[in-house]
């Protein structure tokens, strides 16, 4: 569990860490659109370079970053294999066995899917590694502000989101503690037959749920005790400020966008 870094924050002080969360959120979203616009190896190369450059700017150690997303590689490989075996016929067929066939089209296509997956995972990992959960929630709230016009409960949603994000690490720690406590009582997690393994879930999940409900109850009492009301306007302790480097980073991605448009024209 500790190996996976997807969705975690790594406190450091780099240019990327200091960017405005709204900037990073919109840029990531823009990047995903670019990924789906890529249509040949030149464009994928360009986007890969952009990703590597962004990671480099964040000063996160390479080995840490790539070891961290390695557990996700199985998910990617599974999808890619599906692509590879079940692509439609219609181009050169290399290999066939019953309904499975590998075509030239299939190979190229699955290579693209692989790249797409990798780029998106790398970029979203970078986003969460360099942005504190609370800043993320603030950024989302600020970006959703226009929805207030249609009476969408933006602030409540943001509050729910930040509470959820806030408790992810807590619950992860608690899972670990409870697992250890049950191990000490003779539970073998992750070994034995399937039936045995399913049984080990109960001593883990029941205490975890109990503790999650307790947290929720404590928190709601604490919030009410301090006068929280969901639909009053509120201010933020930490104000989001758009700096020059935020504009610069957007400028950089616009240039990438133009480059991508040009490369798309290549045969």
């Amino acid at each position, binding site marked *: 569990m*500790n190996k996976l870094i997807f969705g975690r924050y*790594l406190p*450091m002080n780099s240019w990327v860490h200091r960017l405005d969360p709204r900037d990073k959120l919109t840029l990531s979203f823009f990047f995903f659109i670019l990924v789906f616009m890529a249509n040949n190896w030149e464009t994928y190369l360009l986007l890969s370079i952009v990703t590597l450059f962004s990671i480099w700017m964040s000063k*996160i*150690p390479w080995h*840490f970053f790539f070891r961290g997303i390695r557990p996700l590689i199985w998910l990617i490989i599974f999808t890619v294999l599906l692509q590879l075996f079940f692509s439609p016929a219609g181009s050169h067929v290399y290999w066939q066995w019953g309904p499975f066939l590998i075509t030239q089209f299939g190979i190229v296509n699955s290579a693209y899917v692989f790249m797409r997956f990798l780029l998106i995972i790398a970029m979203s990992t970078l986003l969460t590694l360099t942005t504190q959960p609370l800043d993320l929630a603030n950024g989302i709230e600020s970006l959703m502000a226009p929805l207030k016009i249609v009476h969408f409960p933006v602030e409540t949603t943001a509050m729910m989101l930040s509470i959820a994000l806030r408790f992810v690490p807590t619950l992860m720690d*608690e899972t670990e*503690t*409870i697992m*250890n*406590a*049950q*191990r*000490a*009582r*003779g*539970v*073998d997690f992750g*070994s034995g037959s399937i039936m045995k393994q399913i049984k080990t879930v*109960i*001593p883990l999940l*029941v*205490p975890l749920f*109990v*503790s999650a409900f307790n947290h929720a109850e404590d928190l709601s009492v604490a919030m009410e005790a301090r006068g929280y009301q969901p639909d009053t306007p509120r201010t933020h302790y930490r104000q989001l400020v758009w700096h020059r480097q935020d504009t610069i980073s957007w400028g950089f991605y616009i240039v990438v966008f133009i480059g991508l448009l040009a490369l798309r024209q290549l045969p």
Partner: protein
Amino acid sequence: MAITFKGVTYDYQAGTPMSFSALKNIDLTVPDGDYLAVIGHTGSGKSTLVQHMNALLKPTSGSVTIGEREITSQTNNKDLKPLRKEVGMVFQFPEHQLFEETVKKDIMFGPMNFGKNEVEADQLADQMIDIVGLPENTADRSPFELSGGQMRRVAIAGVLAMQPRVLILDEPTAGLDPQGRTEMMAMFNRLHQEQGLTIILVTHQMEDVANYAKHVLVMDHGEAAKYGTAEEVFTDVEWLRANNLDLPIATQFAHQLTQRGANFTTVPLTTAELAQELARQLGGKRHE
């Protein structure tokens, strides 16, 4: 069952930028039948240390030998069950581990995992409910309906029911009422005396250390800062003060008397010892 630490270092999140060294080069021997108290301020590595004693954590470097088993960073996670049966562990806030429908079933969970059949486990559970001082009618209630202190007792009963030979207690009485605390500590001591149970107690209660422990280990920033008998450790008042550690009340009192000119050959640790020593010095009659 003796436990030996040889040059044990433990890093949380080893190999990442967040790596944090919670234990640094620990050498320690806990002889069979010992009663060891581990003290030190919060975050000094006490819980990390004791979790090595039943292989819940494996040393990043160095080795831990528990009875015949040697645990190093290379040790496989399988086959640790026999070890965990011998070394019972009561975690900090153990009430978080309860999950069964009834108190009794929860207590039976450990022994049944370690190969006891239902009848034996049932008997053990009845016995333990009695030992930890739970009212008998709690046996068939849900553990979640009980008070915090009662839940604590259920969890402790669940570990005792495994009949371990070594018992690790990580702040077992934190948050209990004074009477419950005294009862609980006396109960552990009885098990230690009568069944020769080796006990390792992590605590902030210096009175408990003074009353029961044979040896004391002081942890400080992941290092074993001091080790010795309770008398040895509590003699060095200045050092303890400098490290923000308390003294047992009797020792504190004696220390204050010393500063006003009194003289003690051995440091009294408990009120009884202090009273006796004072009575002797003041020429009174020896009490009982």
